[in-house]
Each structure stands twice: as structure tokens, then as C-alpha cells.
């Protein structure tokens, strides 16, 4: 007897929980598994995808931090380079276009008050006898100063009290009016007389003009044919000629040390510098007994 099959019955048995007779056979088939290589690839992809989601905030944070660090580094480098350029300028004395204008200040308030009496006396004398030299007492705009350079401040004697405004112009005008008529020696004397206002105006060139000032002093002495005492008096009336850093440093020395430095300068052949120091020393210490050697140098 043959038994015909009913497809719907077979289907129903297939859809049973155990999937019928073929389900049993199917479950006994081999169960191939994916190779480990695929497992690694899939899990790596999944992990990478998750990390990719989380990464951007961390990367943004790192980016911000890196940018800030870069800015700080760049600012530091720029500052260092600026320092080096300033130092080079200070050494070479090269002008800088962006220099700022800084009013001239006295060296120090303490030093100024200590010697105020002698300075004022000297200035008053200078006003009486050489008003033109003290006339340009306007606090000058100052010369181009380097930001980091040692402050080149004028010597105390070079900062006289304001001169009467009415006195200065006539002399200046007079000098300006007759430069051609004056003999060459007189021209040199006039130039020498005008040198101090220029020095006040241009503090930065003080060091460079020190030697020129010496020459002018010499020229002035020779031109007018001053006798030695008169020349000495002229020198004593003159404001402190040097405002060099060295001279200002010496002002802060003890009197004995300062005198020893003056002797050293003289012995080293730097006679004019020694004279400038000695002149300033006598103003600051008028009662100090000088040795014969220094007295001769002063005279």
C-alpha cells in the first residue's frame, strides 16, 4: 500500500517546535563556526566604532590644550628674541624705530636730595654766569631710549632748576644771529656752549658725546684764551660733564673708594675721565681734604 503525503501536514510538522523528522536530522549536521580570524576582525571593528564615537571630545580637548601650549611657547620665544635684540641694540647703540619717548628722570631721589645743596649752588652760579647753558631746562623729551638698556639719566648737575624763561631767548637769539661774524674760535666756543643743552636733549648720546665734549672743552679753553685759573673756574661752573653710567656708579662709592678710583683712572691714562670724577666729587664732598696729587689734577 502506498501512502500519499500531504504537503500541508509536512509543513505543519516542519513548523512544529522540533521541526519534524528533518529537524532532527538537521540538528545532527555539523555545526561549523566562524574562524577566529573573523571573530577578531568583527570585534575590532565594533571596538573601533565605539572608540570613534568617544574620541572626538578627547581630541577636541587635546587640540585645545595643544593650541594653548603652542601659544605660550610662541610668546616665550618672541619674548626671548626681543630680549636678545634689545641686548644687542644696547651693545651696538643702534637706533630703533619704535623707541618710546620717556621723560628724563633724576638718577635717584635719594642721591638727588643728598647733594641738593651743592647742586643747587652750582646751578645757581651757572645761571648767573652762563644762563644760556642752563636755559633749555625744559624736561625734555627724551631721547630715544632702549627699553632694557641701563637708564641713561643725566648727572645731577646736568639737571638745573628751570631757568627764567625770559633770560634764555635773547642769548640764544644773539648767538643764532651772529654765527657767521664770529671768528672760528668763537664759533667753536659757541658750539661748546650749546653742547650742554644738546646733551640734555639727547641722553642716549651722552656716552658717545663724552669724548666730543672733552674736545669742545679744550677748544673752548683755547679759543677764548682763558688763563688757567679762569679756565678752571669755567670748568667748575660747568655742569657735570659726564653722565656716563660709570660716573654715576662712582657717585655711589664711598669717598675713599671714589678717590682711589679717580687715582686709578689718572694712572691708567684716562685723565679727562678722572677730572670729571674729581669735579663731581668736589661738588658732592666740598669739605673733603684732597691729596696734593688730586688737588693738582683738579686745578
Amino acid at each position, binding site marked *: *500500500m*502506498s*501512502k*500519499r*503525503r500531504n*504537503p*500541508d501536514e*509536512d*509543513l505543519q510538522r*516542519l*513548523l512544529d517546535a522540533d*521541526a519534524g*523528522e*528533518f*529537524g532532527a*536530522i*538537521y540538528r*545532527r*549536521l555539523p*555545526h*561549523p*563556526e*566562524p*574562524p*577566529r580570524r*573573523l*571573530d*577578531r*576582525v*568583527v*570585534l575590532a*571593528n*565594533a*571596538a573601533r*566604532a*565605539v572608540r570613534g*564615537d*568617544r574620541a572626538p571630545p578627547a581630541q577636541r580637548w587635546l587640540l585645545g590644550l595643544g593650541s594653548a601650549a603652542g601659544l605660550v611657547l610662541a610668546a616665550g620665544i618672541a619674548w626671548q628674541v626681543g630680549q636678545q635684540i634689545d641686548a644687542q641694540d644696547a651693545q651696538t647703540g643702534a637706533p630703533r624705530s619704535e623707541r618710546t619717548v620717556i621723560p628724563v628722570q633724576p638718577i635717584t631721589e635719594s642721591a638727588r636730595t643728598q647733594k641738593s645743596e651743592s647742586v643747587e649752588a652750582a646751578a645757581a652760579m651757572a645761571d648767573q654766569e652762563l644762563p644760556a647753558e642752563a636755559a633749555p631746562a625744559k624736561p625734555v623729551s627724551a631721547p630715544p631710549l632702549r627699553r632694557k638698556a641701563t637708564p641713561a639719566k643725566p648727572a645731577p648737575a646736568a639737571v638745573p632748576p628751570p631757568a627764567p624763561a625770559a633770560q634764555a631767548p635773547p642769548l640764544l637769539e644773539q648767538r643764532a644771529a651772529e654765527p657767521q661774524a664770529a671768528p672760528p674760535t668763537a664759533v667753536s666756543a659757541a658750539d661748546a656752549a650749546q653742547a650742554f643743552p644738546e646733551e640734555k636733549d639727547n641722553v642716549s648720546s651722552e656716552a658717545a658725546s663724552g669724548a666730543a665734549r672733552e674736545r669742545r672743552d679744550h677748544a673752548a679753553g683755547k679759543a677764548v684764551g682763558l688763563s688757567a685759573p679762569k679756565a678752571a673756574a669755567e670748568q667748575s661752573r660747568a655742569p657735570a660733564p659726564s653722565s656716563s653710567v660709570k660716573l654715576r656708579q662712582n657717585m655711589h662709592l664711598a669717598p675713599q673708594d671714589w678717590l682711589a678710583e679717580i687715582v686709578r683712572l689718572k694712572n691708567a691714562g684716562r685723565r679727562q675721565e678722572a677730572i670729571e670724577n674729581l669735579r663731581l666729587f668736589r661738588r658732592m664732598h666740598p669739605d673733603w681734604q684732597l691729596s696734593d696729587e688730586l688737588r693738582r689734577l683738579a686745578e
Partner: protein
Amino acid sequence: MDCLNLAGMGSERTDEELMLAYAGGDMLAFEMLYRRHRGTLYRFLLRSLRQRADADELFQETWSRAIAARERYRVEAKFTTWLLQIAHNLVIDRFRRSRPQASAEEAEVVFNQLDAPDDERPDRVLSEFEQRRRLQIALEELPEEQRVTFLLRMENGLGLEEISEVTGVGRETVKSRLRYALARVRARFET
């Protein structure tokens, strides 16, 4: 593999919960999910495509697409159905590129062979080894759509509705494909 040794961990969580956890960045959830479905998915692909290289390729591609679409996954869809949909689409694309579908006339021939006498049923006399071999051959010889439908039932245990959802065809079409597939398999056992 470490994730495969996490036996029991996360078993209290459903596939859907694990998938949502992974979408939120929980890599351990994905490892559990992968451990649950790697075998059935691989066998479905291997028996559908019959080529290990193809199965490997589409297995990796299926998971890659699931990973890429994790943020679009919604709990309304059962995870198994969602994953098998991805795999099924890839399989169909591969079929279309490789060879034409089997003709419908072949199915009629198979049904005619079903009128065999009951005492001639080969499963009564075939050894267990022979039964497994014939089933494998029958699966390989099935037309692709029938084979995929049959495998979704046998390997993945899906019902008519779920198969319909995965394959994108109507319920009756699923039933028809299953009937034809069953007839062909039986024919292989009775020859």
C-alpha cells in the same frame, strides 16, 4: 577568544538590551551579543551560499553593517530579525550576481516524486550518516529562495511571520517556499 568565554554573563539581558547598550558605547554588550549569534548566523550564510569564502565575506559584512547601523536600531525590531534581514539582503545580492534562479518547473517534478509508497521511504533504511549527507545535498540543490527560507526555519528557528519579515515576502509565499523545499528534500531522501 575572551568574549566567547564569558559564559553566562549578560544572559539575563535580551538581545535588544544588549544592542542598545552597545549603541551607547558598551563594548562588552556587543561581545555578548556576538557570542550568541555568531554560530547561527555563520551557518545560515554558509549553507545558503555553499562557499566558505563567500560565507566568511558576508559574515563579516553583516556584522559590519550591524555595527554601522547601531544608532538607528530601534527596539521595535527583534534583533535576530534585524540581523538576519541584513544577512538575507546580502545573500540575495550575491545570488543575483552569481547565477540565475532555478525554474519553477523543477518544483513540479519534485512534487510528482512525492507519490512514493510508504514502505519505500528511504529514511527507514538509510544510515544516520547517509541521512545527514543527503540532507546536505538536498539543501545545496534547493533553489536559492527556497533554501534560504528553509534555513531560516531550520537553522534560526523563525516562524512564518518572522521569515516573512526577514525576506520581505508575504506569509503565503513563505509557506509555499517551505512546502516546495520540503518536497525537494524528501525527494532526495526517496531516490
